[in-house]
């Protein structure tokens, strides 16, 4: 009783640590067994940060339960985007430079509900690995970080199910054996009641404060997987995933919009460990279909204008890899991956009197063939070295309306770890990376409305060269990591007409609005974690500087990257107030301080004249790109996690408060022409959150 009272008074508690708990967990995924072996032997996370869903769910989120991306946003080296969003900016890279994969399949539209959560349900995920450097050879086609999601295989022994609910998402998951011990199936579905919530809330909001006449939403996702285990050394799986976000809103009787994005993924995967000369053999084939669209209807001077724009990516990937032991302490992994993709960005059509015009086609095909290999050498508890190499042959403009061509890029990664004392040591990573597509980022919320275009002769692939050096230690309950990084980026794109992002004319000529440049980033990272039976806490800190340079912009002057946050600090704690077999109570708290991001503001003005006009026009002028730094982002969240386990059913409830300080963290700025002043707009005040989950 005393403990419960104490928990109600104390607000600062511990969160559960997430690292290095894998020795007893069998994970079948695309990671090479030798790598996992090395990880166990060294006792450290050679694969970066590896997260398990029960831990990521406890991260604070407006949805009441977090996800992998929300957790990753609290790690060192990671800067966040706008309030509440799922955007991450890793070591100075852009949001579009990160890759999220599910069983090796890239996911292009990663967020639901405008960034409030990611599209992959945590119930599907066995493990999330976040890598910011020292990448294995099979990881490619990105220049910042890789969020690698590994799906569960399902339960081969018994049926289990779960149901979850929060104000934004309702979901259900089931896993059952088809043939006990050898075949299993699992399925997840989530839908959002947000449209119904709006209709319920609408009468309570004053009419003159309502901006939207009407609003409708359809958001959800579904996943299914069949796994067949022929024997201990052979398994085959087939999985499907689909997600949909569609939002329709009417501002007034003359204007309505519908915008949305969707993903459809299919994957067939085979793992074999029975071939004598090969330690492991893996093959898979996947298909990926991503669509982003916007439709706008406006009534202008009596005429109905109906404009539709769609961006589509269709991708087929075939890959295979194998691992050979080359010695007692070394192994060699090699493979090939061939990816054919069809990009069709900003295809548009107009509805006229004679019906809708055919979609203006902007398609362009690409083929990326990658030969990869890595050699790894480890001395248990002493040394680990990994040399990874990739050779990329990239063909563009296939079957499309752009010029054809091809290019070749070698790239690779180096990872060195040396324990100078037992369980602590030094680490060095060096990566040369290439990405063969660009995300023309518009609204900086991490929305999947961003347009993705393939690289070609005029938009060369993004390239990055980065290095990291630091120290690490895993001393019982205490884990630390500290280091410094430096990164150079080339062929970054800057979309110069973001103001007209939804404008048909501008979108059709998007290629003309792109500037190509470079960026530099460097910084210090620090992480400390302590996981105890009762109290666990984690602190991370990043000091970094990141800038950009585009010869044709800003008069050729360097300027800060938008999310160049000089200081980023997170402090999270979890206190197990009560831990019984059938009942547990945790109190958690999270505090974050981040230097403000940068915005471009019109801070000056001059007079301009058009032909034949005597009266001048007062023209806003920008002294520099990203010339204004928003106030610091400070947020304190607190919550309670309650779990009640019965014989067959387990209940979990998260209740908490988001932004306890009710700080007006600025999201953007706008110019109030009436008052002739700039104002910050902040979105999320103090807000309660709740989520419920039941497992069978």
């Amino acid at each position: 009783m005393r403990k419960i009272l104490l928990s109600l008074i104390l607000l600062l508690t511990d969160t559960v640590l997430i690292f290095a708990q894998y020795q007893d967990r069998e994970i079948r995924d695309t990671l090479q067994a030798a790598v996992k072996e090395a990880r166990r032997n060294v006792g450290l996370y050679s694969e970066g940060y590896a997260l398990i869903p029960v831990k990521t769910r406890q991260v604070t989120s407006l949805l009441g339960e977090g996800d992998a991306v929300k957790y990753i946003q609290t790690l060192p080296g990671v800067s966040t985007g706008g309030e509440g969003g799922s955007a991450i900016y890793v070591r100075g890279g852009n949001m579009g430079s990160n890759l999220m994969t599910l069983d090796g399949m890239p996911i292009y539209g990663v967020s639901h509900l405008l960034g409030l959560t990611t599209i992959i349900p945590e119930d599907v995920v066995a493990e999330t690995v976040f890598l910011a450097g020292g990448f294995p050879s099979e990881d490619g086609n990105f220049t910042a970080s890789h969020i690698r999601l590994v799906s569960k295989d399902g339960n081969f022994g018994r049926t289990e199910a779960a149901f979850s609910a929060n104000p934004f998402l309702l979901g259900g998951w089931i896993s059952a054996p088809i043939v006990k011990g050898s075949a299993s199936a699992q399925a997840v579905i989530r839908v959002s009641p947000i449209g119904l919530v709006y209709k319920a809330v609408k009468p309570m909001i004053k009419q003159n404060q309502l901006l939207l006449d009407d609003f409708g939403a359809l958001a959800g996702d579904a996943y299914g997987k069949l796994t067949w285990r022929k024997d201990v050394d052979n398994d085959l799986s087939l999985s499907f995933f689909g997600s949909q976000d569609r939002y329709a809103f009417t501002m007034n009787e003359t204007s309505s919009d519908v915008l949305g994005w969707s993903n459809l993924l299919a994957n067939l995967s085979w793992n074999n460990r029975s071939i004598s000369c090969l330690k492991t053999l893996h093959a898979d084939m996947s298909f990926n279909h991503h669509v982003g669209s916007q439709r706008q209807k406006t009534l202008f001077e009596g005429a109905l204008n109906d404009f539709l724009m769609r961006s589509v990516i269709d991708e087929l990937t075939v890959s295979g890899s194998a691992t050979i032991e080359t010695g007692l302490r070394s192994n060699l992994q090699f493979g090939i991956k061939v990816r054919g993709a069809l990009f069709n960005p900003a295809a548009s059509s107009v509805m006229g009197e004679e019906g809708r015009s055919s979609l203006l086609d902007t398609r362009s095909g690409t083929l990326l063939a990658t030969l990869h290999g890595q050699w790894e050498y480890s001395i248990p508890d002493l040394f680990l070295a990994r040399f990874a190499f990739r050779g990329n042959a990239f063909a563009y403009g296939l079957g499309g309306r752009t010029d054809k061509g091809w290019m070749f890029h070698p790239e690779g990664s180096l990872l060195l770890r040396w324990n100078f004392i037992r369980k602590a040591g030094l680490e060095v990573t060096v990566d040369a990376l290439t990405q063969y597509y660009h995300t023309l980022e518009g609204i900086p919320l991490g929305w999947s409305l961003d347009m993705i275009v393939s690289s070609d002769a005029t938009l060369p692939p993004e390239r990055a060269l980065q290095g990291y050096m630091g120290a690490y230690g895993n001393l019982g309950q205490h884990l630390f990591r500290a280091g410094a990084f430096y990164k150079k980026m080339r062929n970054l794109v800057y979309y110069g007409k973001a103001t007209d992002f939804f404008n048909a004319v501008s979108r059709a000529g998007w290629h003309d609005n792109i500037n190509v440049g470079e960026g530099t980033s460097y910084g210090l990272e620090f992480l400390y974690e302590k996981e105890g039976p009762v109290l666990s806490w984690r602190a991370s800190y990043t000091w970094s500087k990141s800038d950009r340079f585009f010869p044709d912009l800003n008069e050729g002057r360097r300027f800060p990257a938008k999310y160049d946050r000089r200081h980023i600090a997170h402090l999270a704690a979890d206190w197990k107030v009560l831990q019984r077999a059938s009942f547990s109570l945790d109190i958690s708290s999270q505090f974050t301080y981040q230097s403000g991001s940068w915005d471009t503001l019109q801070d000056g003005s001059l007079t301009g004249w058009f032909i034949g006009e005597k009266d001048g026009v007062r023209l806003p002028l920008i002294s520099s790109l990203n010339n204004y730094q928003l106030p610091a982002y400070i947020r304190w969240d607190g919550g309670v996690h309650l779990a009640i386990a019965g014989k067959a059913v387990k209940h979990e409830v998260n209740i908490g408060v988001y932004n306890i300080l009710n700080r007006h963290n600025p999201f953007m700025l706008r110019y109030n022409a009436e008052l002739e002043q700039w104002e910050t707009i902040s979105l999320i005040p103090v807000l309660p959150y709740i989520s419920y989950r039941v497992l069978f």
Partner: protein
Amino acid sequence: MKRVFPPVVLLLAFLLLACSDPVEIAWKGERQVSVYCILTRDSLQTVRLSWVSSLKDGKEEWVDDAQVFIRDKGYAYPGKKVNAGEWAVSMTPEPGKTYWLEIHLPDGKEISAETSCPDERILIDVDVYQPAIWLEEEEENIRQKQPPLAYELGVCQFFNESFYRQFKEMKGATTMHHVMPGLVFLLKDSVCCYISAAFHGRDGQLTPIRYLATNHKESDNFNVTKKQYQSEDYFSPSGNELRDRYDRASFSKYNGLVMHDSFLRIEQTRDYDNGVRNVYPVSGHAFSTVTDFKPVESANKYFTVVGSFENAVFDKNVGPDDEYTILYFSSVSKEYDRYLKYVYERKQKADGDMLTSLYSDNANIPGNIEGGTGIFGAICVKAFACHRSINRFTGNMVVYEPPRL
């Protein structure tokens, strides 16, 4: 704190109550001079100098003191201060030549820029051509009855079916009974050109024509509106059934053309063929002829400009010289062209959308001033009067002389 719902966060507004707080913004960086100087064919050029001010300030802060020169290869023409922030330079730019602007400030700072004057001789050629081809069923008749004719009105060609009908049937008539909103021009070998129009009413007032449309394939769509040209909107029956039928037929083919706001911007056209000779008006004579010429609309060598006359009032009882349309062809230097597009686009935003930081716009402000900001450009304007009367022409109605052979 004021509670607001920013339009740009529509999809979150219904759930989240956004708040706003004021911030102070001040100009960052060194104080800059804004330069505005556009060379014209006048004998006096104007250079305006002001200090860039903060966004909030509405007043212009003029530069007090500076030495201003416009230089060509041989000579530096000095400027003389004539007003607050305004210097006048006596010189007449020549087409095709390059000029440099030099400004010396008292603190030792120097500002410079370079521009070239559009070559007037290749700016615009106005050709006349056989109108008869537009009247398929009467073509033979026309050729038999009279030699190929072309008509000049002022220094521009005014051509459409109804006009031709007027000419054919109403020789000597001095008034028209309905508006003629369509004008067909040939634009040849020009640099980037802005076409605008104004209506000169009987009261002497010039009213800009708000909407223009064209079938020119290289017209810039950056200022398109959502309005479409509908000839019936401007049609006024004359009472003559045959005339009205031809009028309707001739202009309805332009129905559906997207209307542009206030002006058309035409990129540089391709080469023209050699089958046409230039014909210029000779005072006192209304007609000239040309032979061996056939218009080919699909080759972009001819295009039509149609305009909305909704803000013009026609009075059929007034004399033919009292009401006319003026077409302006403004050929501009490359830097000035980019500047004009920017000014136009910014003006639209100032009229409508609020400024926000959510969309970080391209801050590449068009200009060519070294050591400052602003524009040093050049423009050559040719204006053509289009009378409704078929019997009258007045030569070049505005300042500029027509080109001479």
